[in-house]
C-alpha cells in the first residue's frame, strides 16, 4: 500500500503510523489550541479535580472562527471585548443583514445550580426591556456546545468610561446625559428589573450621542452562591465595587432598585468632578462650576440609607432637567421630588388653550388668504400687511405647538401674545390670555423643557463619539476599556449617512416655514400685479417655495410626529401651486 495520503487540513503527508489514521500534527494541535477554554468548557463533572487549568475567573474567549460554527445563521465578525461577565462579538445576521452583538457567558456558569432556568427567566425579562436608551436583547439561548449567549443590538460607539477619561466632560454635557440614564433606569425598574451594576463601562453612547445602557440584569444572573465571589479575588468578575450601593455589599439579598440609584449617583458625581465620591467627599459645586442645587440631587442619590435616597430614577432626571432649564437662580428649587404626574397634569391643563391658539392661527391664515383673494385689502398696503399677517400666523401656530408639546417656553409665550392680537377676535384674545395666565404659573413653566429623548446630547459629545469610534472599541460590561483600531465600515451605509431624525425636525421646520412664507408671498405678488414684471418677480418665489416645500416633506420621515413642519411645507407647496396656476392663466 504505497499510496501517500495527506491530511485534508494541514496538507502534510499522512505517515503510515498515524494514530488511528489521523494526522498527528493536527491531533496535537487540536489539543494545543484553546486548551484553556476547551478545558473550562470541557471539564468533566468530577469534582475532585480542579476544573480549570487557568486561575478561576479567567476566561479565554474563543476566536471568531471557532464561534462561527455554533451560530450558523450569523457571520461572526470580530471579538469586541471581554470581561468577567463574558465576551462580546460583533456579528451580522445573514438573513436580515443586520449587525448584532453576541455576548457569550463564561463556560463556568454551566456549573451553577439551576442555571438554565434562571438564565431563561432572566433573559425573558431582559427581552421585555424595549427602550431607546437600553440595549435591546433580541435573542438568547444555549448552543449545542454548551455556551450561553445573548444576541443584542449592536451599538456602534463608545462608553462613558472612555468619554469621562478622554473627553473631559463639561458639566452641561453631563447634565444632558444623566436624564437619559434616569429614563432608562425608570423604565427597567417599572418592569421590575434592577441593573445592579451601573457603572460608566456599562453606559454606552452611540454615534448619535444617544445613551444606551447595557448588561441589565447580568450581575444578578451571574451572581450565585456557587460562584467564588470575594472582593479579594483577582478574577475580573467583581469589577470595581465603588459603584455598588452599601446595601449591595452589606446585605446583598435585600437589594432593590434603589441600589441602581446609588450607582447612578456615583456615576453622576464622577461625570461632574472626574473623581469618585469616596469617604468624606466634597459636593460637586465645590469642585467644579455647577449649579449649587445639583449638590442636593447628587447627595441625595448617594445616601447610605436606601429610604433616604430618591425612590425613583425618574425623579432624579426631572430634578436635573429642572435645574438645567430653570436659569433663574432666584427660583427656589423644591427638594420634594417631582413625579412625572406633575408634568402630565400640566400637559392636560395647557391642552385646550394650545389647541385654541392653533385654531386661532389657522383662522388667521385663512383670513390672510381670503383677504388676498378677495382683494379686500387696499393694493398698496397689501403686500406688507399680508407679510405681517403671515408672520403672525407663523408665530401663533408655532407657539401653540410648543405649548402643547411643552417644548420651548419662549415660543409658547410669543404665540400667546400674538394670539391676543390676531385677527381671530375674540377667540384668539381669549385663548391667548388663558395661555398666558397658565404660562406664568411656576409648575407650568417648570414642566417645559421635556425634550424628546433623541435630541439632547450636545454636539461636541456626539462628535467625540463619532471620532472615537474610529479608534476605540466598544465596551460591553468590561472590566477595563481596551482601545484598539476598529475597522470602520468604509462606505457608510445609506441609512447611516442620511440625517437622522434628530436633525430632521429643525431643518424641516425651517424649510417648511420658509416654503410657507415664500408661497404666501408669491400669491401676494401675483395678486398685486398682473403685468409682466409681476410675473417675473413672482416666478422665482413660486419655484423656491415649491422646492423648499418638497425638500421639507422629503426630509420628514414620520409625518405624524412632525405635523407642524408637514403642515407648513404642504401649505407652502399649495400656495406655490396656486400662484403657478394664476401665473399660467393670466
Amino acid at each position, binding site marked *: 500500500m504505497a499510496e501517500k495520503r495527506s491530511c485534508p487540513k494541514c496538507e502534510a503527508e499522512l505517515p503510515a503510523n498515524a494514530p*488511528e489514521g489521523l494526522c498527528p*500534527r493536527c491531533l496535537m494541535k*487540536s489539543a494545543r489550541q484553546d486548551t484553556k477554554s476547551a478545558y473550562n*468548557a470541557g471539564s468533566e463533572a468530577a469534582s475532585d479535580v*480542579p476544573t480549570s*487549568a487557568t486561575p478561576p475567573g479567567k476566561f479565554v474567549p474563543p476566536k471568531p472562527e471557532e464561534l462561527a460554527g455554533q451560530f450558523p445563521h450569523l457571520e461572526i465578525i470580530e471579538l469586541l471585548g471581554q470581561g468577567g461577565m463574558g465576551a462580546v462579538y460583533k456579528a451580522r445576521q445573514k438573513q436580515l443583514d443586520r449587525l448584532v452583538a453576541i455576548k457569550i457567558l463564561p463556560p463556568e456558569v454551566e456549573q451553577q445550580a439551576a442555571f438554565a432556568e434562571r438564565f431563561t427567566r432572566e433573559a425573558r425579562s431582559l427581552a421585555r426591556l424595549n427602550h431607546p436608551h437600553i440595549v435591546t436583547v433580541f435573542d438568547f439561548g444555549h448552543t449545542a456546545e454548551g455556551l450561553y449567549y445573548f444576541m443584542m443590538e449592536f451599538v456602534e460607539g463608545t462608553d462613558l468610561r472612555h468619554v469621562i477619561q478622554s473627553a473631559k466632560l463639561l458639566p452641561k454635557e453631563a447634565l444632558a446625559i444623566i436624564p437619559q440614564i434616569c429614563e432608562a433606569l425608570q423604565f427597567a425598574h417599572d418592569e421590575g428589573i434592577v441593573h445592579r451594576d451601573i457603572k460608566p463601562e456599562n453606559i454606552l453612547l452611540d454615534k448619535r450621542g444617544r445613551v444606551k445602557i447595557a448588561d441589565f440584569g447580568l450581575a444578578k444572573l451571574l451572581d450565585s*452562591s456557587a460562584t467564588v*465571589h470575594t472582593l479579594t479575588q483577582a478574577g475580573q468578575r467583581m469589577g470595581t465595587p465603588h459603584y455598588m450601593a452599601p446595601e449591595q455589599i452589606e446585605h446583598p439579598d435585600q437589594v432593590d432598585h434603589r441600589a441602581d440609584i446609588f450607582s447612578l449617583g456615583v456615576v453622576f458625581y464622577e461625570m461632574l468632578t472626574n473623581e469618585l465620591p469616596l469617604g468624606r467627599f466634597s459636593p460637586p459645586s465645590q469642585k467644579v462650576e455647577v449649579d449649587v442645587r445639583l449638590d442636593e440631587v447628587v447627595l441625595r442619590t448617594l445616601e447610605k440609607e436606601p429610604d433616604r435616597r430618591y425612590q425613583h430614577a425618574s425623579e432624579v432626571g426631572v430634578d436635573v432637567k429642572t435645574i438645567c432649564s430653570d436659569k433663574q437662580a432666584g427660583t427656589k428649587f423644591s427638594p420634594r421630588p417631582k413625579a412625572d404626574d406633575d408634568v402630565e397634569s400640566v400637559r392636560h391643563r395647557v391642552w385646550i388653550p394650545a389647541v385654541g391658539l392653533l385654531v386661532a392661527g389657522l383662522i388667521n391664515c385663512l383670513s390672510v388668504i381670503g383677504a388676498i383673494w378677495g382683494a379686500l385689502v387696499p393694493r398698496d398696503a397689501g403686500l406688507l400687511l399680508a407679510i405681517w399677517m403671515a408672520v403672525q400666523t407663523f408665530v401663533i401656530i408655532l407657539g401653540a405647538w410648543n405649548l402643547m408639546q411643552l417644548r420651548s417656553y419662549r415660543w409658547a409665550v410669543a404665540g400667546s401674545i400674538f394670539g391676543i392680537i390676531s385677527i381671530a377676535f375674540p377667540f384668539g384674545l381669549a385663548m391667548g390670555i388663558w395661555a398666558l395666565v397658565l404660562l406664568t404659573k411656576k409648575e407650568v413653566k417648570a414642566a417645559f423643557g421635556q425634550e424628546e429623548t433623541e435630541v439632547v446630547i450636545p454636539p461636541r459629545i456626539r462628535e467625540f463619539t463619532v471620532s472615537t469610534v474610529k479608534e476605540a472599541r466598544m465596551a460591553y460590561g468590561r472590566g477595563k476599556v481596551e482601545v484598539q483600531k476598529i475597522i470602520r465600515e468604509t462606505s457608510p451605509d445609506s441609512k447611516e449617512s442620511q440625517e437622522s431624525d434628530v436633525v430632521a425636525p429643525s431643518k424641516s421646520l425651517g424649510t417648511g416655514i420658509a416654503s410657507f412664507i415664500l408661497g404666501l408671498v408669491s400669491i401676494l405678488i401675483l395678486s398685486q400685479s398682473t403685468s409682466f414684471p409681476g410675473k417675473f418677480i413672482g416666478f422665482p418665489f413660486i419655484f423656491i417655495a415649491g422646492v423648499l416645500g418638497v425638500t421639507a416633506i422629503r426630509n420628514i420621515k414620520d409625518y405624524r410626529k412632525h405635523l407642524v413642519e408637514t403642515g407648513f411645507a404642504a401649505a407652502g407647496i399649495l400656495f406655490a401651486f396656486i400662484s403657478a396656476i394664476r401665473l399660467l392663466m393670466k
Partner: protein
Amino acid sequence: MSGKSAKNFSMSGAGRFATTHWSVVLQAGQPKAPGYQQALETLCESYWFPLYSYLRRHGYDNQQSEDYTQAFFCRILDKQVLRMADSKRGKFRSFLLGTLKHFLSDEYDRARAQKRGGGRKILSIDFKNAENQYALEPAHGLSPEKLFDKSWALTVLDRTMAHLKAELVSQNKQELFDHLKIYLTAEKDSIPYRDKAAELNITEGNVRTAVHRLRRRYRKLLRDEIAQTVAAEDQVDEEIDDLFNALAY
C-alpha cells in the same frame, strides 16, 4: 462579598499532580522510597519506543537496541539517578533522554548490559513491532534526539487514542468512534454533520453533541497523558507545544 466561599477553587494543581506518575517518582526521589518503583515502571513501559528509536538511530542494531533499552530501565529502577535539578522542573521526557545519554557514554554500564537482564526482572515490553514501527520512519536525517522527541509525540498520541477508543468501546460506542474520530482533526464545519447522521442513523444534533463530547474527552485524555510525565500543571501546555514542534521534524 456574600461571605460564602463555597467551592474551593483555590486548590492548586499540586493536589492533582501529587498522583501523576512522574510527580510520584520525583517526590519519592530514590529507588527505595515507596511509589518510586511502580510509578517509574509504568512510565517506562509506556514510553520505551522513543528510547528504542533513539538507540536505533544512534547506530545500534535492533537486538542491541532492545538489550540496551532493558538494561537502561533496570539501571534507573535500581540505582539513584534522579538529581536535584530533575525534581524541580524536569519533565520525564528530558530526564529520560539525558539519563540515557549518560548511560550510553558510560562504558562500564554498557559492558554490563551485554548480559541480559542483569539479575533483575525485565520489563514487559513488546519489542516485536518495534522494528517495524521504527522502519516506518524515513531514513533521511533526523538526529537521534529529534527522532526521540518525535517518537515520543507519536507515542503520546497513540496512547491517547487507544484510551479514547477503549473508553468508547466499553460504552458500546465503537461505531461512533470510528465514524466521528475524523472530527478530531477536521476543520470546523468542513465535514457536514448531515452525512454522518445518516450513516449512524441518529439526528444531526446528536452528531454535533457527540462530536463535541468526543473532542472534549480527547483533549482531556491527552492532557492527562502528558500530565503523567510532567511535574506541574503549567508544564502541560509547554510540553504540548514542544511535542507539536517535534512532529514537524
